[in-house]
């Protein structure tokens, strides 16, 4: 199999039960951080990037870029699809276009993923500081 530096994928954001539990403990809780600063990827896609679960990846869209922990999606193949749980990390990269109806495109943003072994996954405080200066 050809190793690739970058993959073009479709980004979907959504709920996970871990994110649901995490948010109830608090947005600055370790549970929330663990649940939301990650990205589910297709097993084959991960191979193409030469990475394993736990590796850091950089997700980039026209809106911005964010570093996340990659996790293999356990239940089915989802080639070309990445899934980030709802949260501040996902929102750095989602397409904000509402197509004039109030709703951003939380599911279906075109994105690029690459391995980012040397870059850290930011905490929520670091992320807010970086993006919004607060």
């Amino acid at each position, binding site marked *: 199999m050809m190793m690739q530096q970058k993959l073009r994928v479709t980004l979907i954001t959504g709920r996970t039960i871990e994110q649901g539990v995490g948010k109830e403990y608090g947005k600055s809780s370790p549970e929330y951080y663990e649940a939301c600063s990650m990205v589910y990827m297709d097993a084959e896609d991960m191979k193409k990037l030469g990475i394993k679960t736990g590796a850091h990846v950089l997700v980039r869209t026209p809106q911005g870029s964010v570093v996340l922990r990659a996790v293999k999606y356990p239940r089915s193949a989802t080639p070309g699809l990445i899934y980030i749980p709802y949260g501040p990390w996902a929102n750095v990269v989602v397409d904000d276009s*509402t197509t004039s109806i109030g709703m*951003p495109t939380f599911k279906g943003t075109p994105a690029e993923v690459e391995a980012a072994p040397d870059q850290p996954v930011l905490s929520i405080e670091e992320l807010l500081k970086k993006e919004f200066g607060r």
Partner: protein
Amino acid sequence: MSVINAVTCPICGCLCDDIEVTVVNNEVVKVKNGCAVCEAKYMGYKSEHRIRQPLVRKEGKLVPVSMDEAIHKAAEILANANYPVLYGWSSTNCEAQRVGVELAEEVGGVLDNTAVVCHGPSLMGTQEVGIPTSTLGQIRHRADLIIYWGCDPWSAHPRHLERYTTFTEGRFEDSEWKSYINKVKAVAGKKKLLSAQRVEPHKKPHETVAESLIFNKPPETLQKEGRKLIVVDVRKSMTAEMADYFIQVQPGKDYELMQAIRALIKDEELDVEQVAGVPVDYLREVVDALISCKFGVIFFGMGLTQSAGKFRNIEVAISLIRDLNSRTKFLIMPMRGHFNVSGANIVSAWQTGYAFGVDFSLGYPRYNPGETTSMDVLLRGESDATLVIAADPGATFPKKAIQHMVKHPLIVIDPHLNATAMLGDVVIPSAFVGIEVSGTAYRMDNVPLPLKKVVEPPEGILTDEEILKKILEEVRIIKSKRDEKTEAP
């Protein structure tokens, strides 16, 4: 120690009202009947992430202030704003929501709730074609075909199947729990068999991948008597694991798939092999199941409202239901997320006529999604102040919207130091609705339920309703003083 029965869980739109909470010394020590998220909330609400006192940003840092100072500051911001956004409202009770409408009207702002990033498109779809629906008990008693489309209740509404659909006993339909357990046992048996033959599935990753991408033929059980469960999603979710049949739709192609089903219902021919990744032959069998059921229902979620098509996806989903009703009984229901987002829509609608995205800047309520919705107001950079209550746009809005929000004064009312609070200029801690505050909330099927107060809030912490009333009162004082000034020569 006291044990409190029939507590309504203030988390998701299921609004399970059979929770048993044990309280010792004004502290919840045990929760029974709830899901994992419910336990996390009741056990975690008092965690260290709670805001203990009002905060105001001074020289870049949030510093503790008195309640009066925080209220006055908040009122000043709103009274001086030309076009404030008042957003959130979904994790609080209807009593607070009522005051919220009055406050938004008083300050001529935009009143919007989290539906805008959730089921706003569903409300818009409903405004196009209506919605044939029911209360959840009707489904529990009668539904023999249950479809979850673009939603994963196992993750987002953990007790939905157990309380309202597949795994509940109805008057005319039985629970499928036993047959599901048998199925799971059979699968477990198969796995044992595999390991006995020393064929380890994980050693053949290529094949596993290929297997799930190639569609399985719909099982014969789809045409059986009794309850059936179908899941449609872009990836195999936990709920899909339990289904009689899982349809993996290609991302962004739900609209196509539903139109194809509509065509098949009308006995039209499709000149293609597959639609949205689903073989048409299999789709025909699914359509047979739809038509031949006695009572079917589609539950749908963000998979439809947030992906390409948005409210058009909902419109076509409802149109599909309309078509099906010429053949059998078929209903549809959105899986509402926050425990009282339905209430936010309902209260807003009875007071203004509109369920979300209400603009009071002209003195009367106006609604035009894309124009008066909070997201668009923020993205266009029009607002000059924001009040956020009972929601966390700092964690749920796209970056660009938050960037505008933090350019102008931001008031946050929440029990937790959530992402928005971390970004706020005035942060007012509130009591937990449904734990420390009673009130009313509306379930995803618009059934009203009472929320219970099981413990006292910490000293000095007010309820959302109290905080809003104080702000409203203060805003009126500031405005009347200002009017006196302008009237004086």
